[in-house]
């Protein structure tokens, strides 16, 4: 399976936020609650990644609950791609 780079996923995350008129800050330590990136936004991001990879990335809800920052999102997508 091909994988997306951290930068590519970051760009897609920015696109998800942009559809809601929000902006992704440059600092990856920014907390998700301060930029309004919610769990369904993560789902949308995951679907966009799936679309690029042409494969499903299924995961359980508890895994999402530990995600707090932009960096956590990028780490998690990285892990999903490696699983």
């Amino acid at each position, binding site marked *: 399976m091909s994988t997306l780079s951290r930068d590519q996923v970051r760009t897609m995350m920015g696109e998800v936020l942009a*559809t809601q008129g929000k902006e992704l800050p440059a600092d990856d330590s920014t907390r998700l609650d301060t930029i*309004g990136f*919610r769990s*369904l936004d993560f*789902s*949308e991001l995951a*679907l*966009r990644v*799936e*679309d690029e990879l042409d494969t499903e990335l299924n995961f359980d809800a508890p895994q999402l609950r530990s995600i707090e920052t932009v960096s956590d999102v990028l780490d998690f997508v990285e892990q999903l791609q490696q699983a």
Partner: protein
Amino acid sequence: MSDVEPIPAASCVLITGGSRGLGLELVRDTLRRGAKVATFSRSITPELQALADEQPDTLFVGSVDITDDAAVKQFIKDASAKLGPIDSLVNNAAIGQDSMHVHTSPDRIAQIVTTNLTAPLVLTRQFIRHAMAKAGRGRIVMVTSVGAQRGYSGLVTYAATKGGLDSAMRTLAREMHGRFLVNSVAPGFFASEMSSVLGNEQLSAISRRTPSGRMVTPENIAPVVGSLLFDDTNLNGQVITVDGGSSI
């Protein structure tokens, strides 16, 4: 104040089972309201084909068995390639039942559950995955039944599947927070389907016992589904029963 914008009216709707009866009326009504429609059923009736021939740019039809996951997935791909992103779904396709539970074979029970509950759940998952990625937000309507709320002989498995869809609808409405409005419309029994098993005298008796004085028709259901697809009502997670008041 909330920062969540209202979910927009439907612009492209997937309606399952649109070849006849209520499904066909829902297709017609949705097109009249200006949205594009994609619909499939096991076979395409001449009425649906005629409508597709009249409106080739706004109506996409296909012959698909809802229990065939791969075919349903391909239909969504083909329909969105033709019409653009699909943002709304009406889960209408179902098979009926008219048999006492003790006389319904296990195979028939499994078939009703697969068609009326498992397939719509899998399709809804597929639709949400498509709509979240392509449209972002949308609306979902489950066509269920008054049979899910009241006991009617001969409908044990059918009622279980429709009640299951109502339960899934409520959970989805919460799970899809701010992204999808999810509701059910529960029709009473249609005069046309009852007339196949009941005589005129029995039909008249049922109509007399219905507070509105008449049984429901597909034309009664379409405006309610239409409102859930197009109006900014903020209705979410609800079952709207349309049965002339017979269940009260």
